[in-house]
């Protein structure tokens, strides 16, 4: 009788261990999400001595490597809150609707030497409560690199997983001088100079999907 009881207990323990291992395995499994070619948008907005301005791009490149339960897992698991995330925006695709302004921006940003704005996530600090669903709120701490100068940036983001795809939405103020960029002053013949102000704002929406299996 004792033997039967021991055997039964061992089976239960084995089953529990297997379930636990599977769960651990599932949460530890890394999924790589790639940037999707549709639905991305980054808007840089600023002000000048004559008017406000914006520049937009529909191209955001990069990847996220996260665990299978991300982003919910990042609310409770400190390791899950440190996924590998690399993002970039090609400078030349930022457009204002005015050719001259685009050319001047490319010149100011030395796009030929530094063709991308780059971002690397360091960690996500949860703001939503554990168990929350939908668009989860975090403060994203990351390294933002513009014209070769890297600055640690903290910005509020929401991350939502829907139908297996991720959508990241965020916004952050930056200053040109943080990146050692001198705010440009545009001289026009017989008119007052136009000064671009130091403060900018970056808003973005980034859509990702799991990397498709190679056929």
């Amino acid at each position, binding site marked *: 009788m004792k033997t039967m009881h021991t055997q039964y207990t061992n089976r239960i323990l084995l089953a529990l261990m297997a379930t636990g291992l599977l769960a651990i395995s599932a949460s530890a499994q890394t999924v790589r999400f790639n940037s999707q070619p549709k639905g991305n948008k980054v808007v840089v907005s600023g002000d000048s001595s004559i008017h406000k301005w914006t520049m937009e791009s*529909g*191209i*955001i490149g990069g990847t996220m490597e996260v665990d299978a339960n991300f982003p919910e897992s990042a609310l409770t698991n400190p390791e899950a809150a440190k996924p590998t995330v690399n993002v970039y925006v090609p400078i030349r695709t930022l457009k204002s609707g005015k*050719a001259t302004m685009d*050319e*001047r921006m490319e010149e100011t940003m030395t796009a030929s030497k530094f063709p991308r704005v780059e971002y690397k996530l360091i960690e996500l600090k949860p703001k939503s409560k554990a168990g929350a669903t939908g668009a989860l709120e975090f403060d994203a701490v990351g390294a933002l690199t513009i014209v070769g100068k890297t600055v640690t940036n903290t910005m509020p983001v929401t991350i939502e997983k829907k139908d297996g795809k991720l959508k990241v939405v965020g916004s952050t103020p930056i200053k040109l001088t943080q990146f050692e960029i001198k705010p440009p002053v545009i001289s026009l*013949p*017989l*008119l007052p100079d136009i000064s671009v102000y130091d403060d900018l704002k970056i808003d973005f929406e980034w859509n990702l999907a799991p990397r498709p299996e190679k056929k």
Partner: protein
Amino acid sequence: MSQPDQSFDFNRRNFLKGSSLAALMTMMGGVELISPAQSSDAASSALRKPKVKVAVIGLGPWGREILDQLGRLEQADIAAICDNYPAMLRRSASKAPDAVQTENYEEILANKDIKAVIVATGSHQHKDIVLAALRAGKHVYCEAPLAHTIEEAREIALAAKANSAVVFQPGLQMRCDPHRRFLLPFIRSGALGKPIMARAQWHKKQSWRQASPNSDRERAVNWRLQQNTSPGLIGEIGIHALDQAAWMFNVMPTAVTGFSSTIVWNDGRDVPDTVEALLDFPEGVRMNYHASLGTSFDEEYELLYGAEATVMMRDGKAWMFKEVDAALLGWEVYARKDNFYKETGIALVVDGSKQRNLSEATTDDPGNALPQLYYALEAFLGNCHEISTEVDEFRATYGEDNEEALAEHLAGVVQAREAKRQAPGYLEGYVATALALKVNEAVTSGKRLELRKEWFELT
């Protein structure tokens, strides 16, 4: 031109003299009536323009004019020139000394470094070259008319439509002229009052016949003189004025009656040397267009008549002639005025302020105005660079197998671009060509032709 280091040494008179009418009108609380592109051009002059490797195919007189204008554009890197007649290549060589010379356009299309081609051959030769260029992924500037038949023009336009990763621009250079683009909203806003009629002419005493060393070359070089290869004066010249009227009025004509004669150049050609077309627009508005190789009197201009005022476009400028009972527009008091026989025209032109006229002999001289072709090519090269950049970045980011998403992405870029470097596309090129060819049909047959809507639809 003022020297940069003298820019702060000016008095009020100099300020008014040198400033735009827009600035003055803004100060006076009036209406802005100059092209804003002028100030941005000044601001951008110091910026380095990205270069585009471009080839010119067809080196007749217009092809050589294109080379001249490309030579003025910083963006143009003329990589190759092409003509199937070696003498034309030699004649053009000095205009593009670093360009590869070839008699075979396929060599240009095979060169991956060349991003854009300008097709300036005879209209009847456009189709094969343009379709091959689009297949090769080149940006294409195709001279107007797109072709000498509607079927071929449609084929070209549909191929351009299907290929969103490249720029296609028809040679409707008047649509790129900043003065005309400035004038467009002015006219469409009803500043002329109810439209009454339009008139346009092109008069040049010249034969159109080019000298040639043998009969084969004679046929090839004088393709304009035979109806089986040429859409004649209407198709080759009138297309621009007809397109402008439809563009400015923002409506297509509904019928056309045509007349033609060969009066001066009875040399075996079957293309008339004098043509006249009367086009019906909605609401009783008509346009009279005539062109002749038999007289040069009064050269070329366009007139748009309205119940309140008439606008004349001539030599890259425009003037408004007000009716005596028309309401006074505040800004016109300060605008520059020029006399035309018994009429006084209010200049609708950049820098056309009264103050400037006080100290400068502005007269009718177009001065240092750049030709419309320059602006058209500038827009084309700018757009080529922008679209190439978007395509390259998109493919580098998302891979090569997302062409549907790329087309969607470029549609947004093109929409933004149209508001920026404004240039016509395949649809405008097709519609203008179809209109010109139908008007030519009426002119050569001497009949009235109802212009059916479906002729202008790209299906």
